[in-house]
């Protein structure tokens, strides 16, 4: 059985390493490691945020209860959910001739600051939807 967890020295580096099933952690290359402390980043999730847009143009949810900053602008991904279908960020072609407004692209705008995530209807109209957002512990902007 392959040794798959190494806490110690691998090559010239010290750290924590976990290999894929069937692979010997002391000898495998990076492509067969599930975890390597030599990496710059992992997809560590800081928070999982639920957002509900209810007959409104925008909805904002704070990362912290008091609205304070988490210290950086995070990398996020979001998906709309409807029943058993995970819709991602659906596309639309929408045109309001009297208002002179149109949209070809994502139905939703997703944006974040260092303290909150906002989901908005791309046309600026009142809309409804439920969303889940993964907030990664990765600064989207260096030094943010």
């Amino acid at each position: 059985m392959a040794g798959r967890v190494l806490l110690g020295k691998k090559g010239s580096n010290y750290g924590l390493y976990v290999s894929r099933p069937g692979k010997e952690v002391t000898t495998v290359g990076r492509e067969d490691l599930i975890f390597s402390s030599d990496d710059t980043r992992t997809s560590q999730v800081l928070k999982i945020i639920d957002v509900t847009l209810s007959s409104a143009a925008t909805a904002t949810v704070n990362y912290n209860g008091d609205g304070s900053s988490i210290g950086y602008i995070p990398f996020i991904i979001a998906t709309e959910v409807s029943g058993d279908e995970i819709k991602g960020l659906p596309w639309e072609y929408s045109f309001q001739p009297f208002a002179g407004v149109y949209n070809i692209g994502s139905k939703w705008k997703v944006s974040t600051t260092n303290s909150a995530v906002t989901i908005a209807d791309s046309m600026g109209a009142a809309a409804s939807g439920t969303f889940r957002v993964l907030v990664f512990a990765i600064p989207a902007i260096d030094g943010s």
Partner: protein
Amino acid sequence: MADRVLLGKKSSDYGLWVSRATTEADTATDKDMLMSSTSPSVGQILLFQKIDVNASASTTLDYKNHGGVKTFMNWWLNSDYLGGGGVSAGIGLYSSDYGFSGLLLTVTNEYINSTTNRITVANISLQSQSIIVMIFKEAAA
């Protein structure tokens, strides 16, 4: 040299932490952690795979959802094998997509039952297509 692996007590919590290079695990904050057992997730990837679909056809791929969760999905058109590249506006972008008339690909990720989720790729173009799909273990709902 920084102490980067901590198995034990950090502040008031017990667990495993691995910090980034040159950062002390004992004092590092979330953004300088490669692994923190006090975080809600480590963003594990359930599936990362190329899916081929014939012209004017659709194909499905079932995968284990490990606990019956509705998972996050991202997909890219596989025209350059790098991800993010598209051959036409609106294709290969960074999301799952219902699309609209005129777009070539529609990719959906659907919960089927307590063990299985299903990816469906529908191609209305006259050429075969390939996409790369990445599924996060995290529950999308």
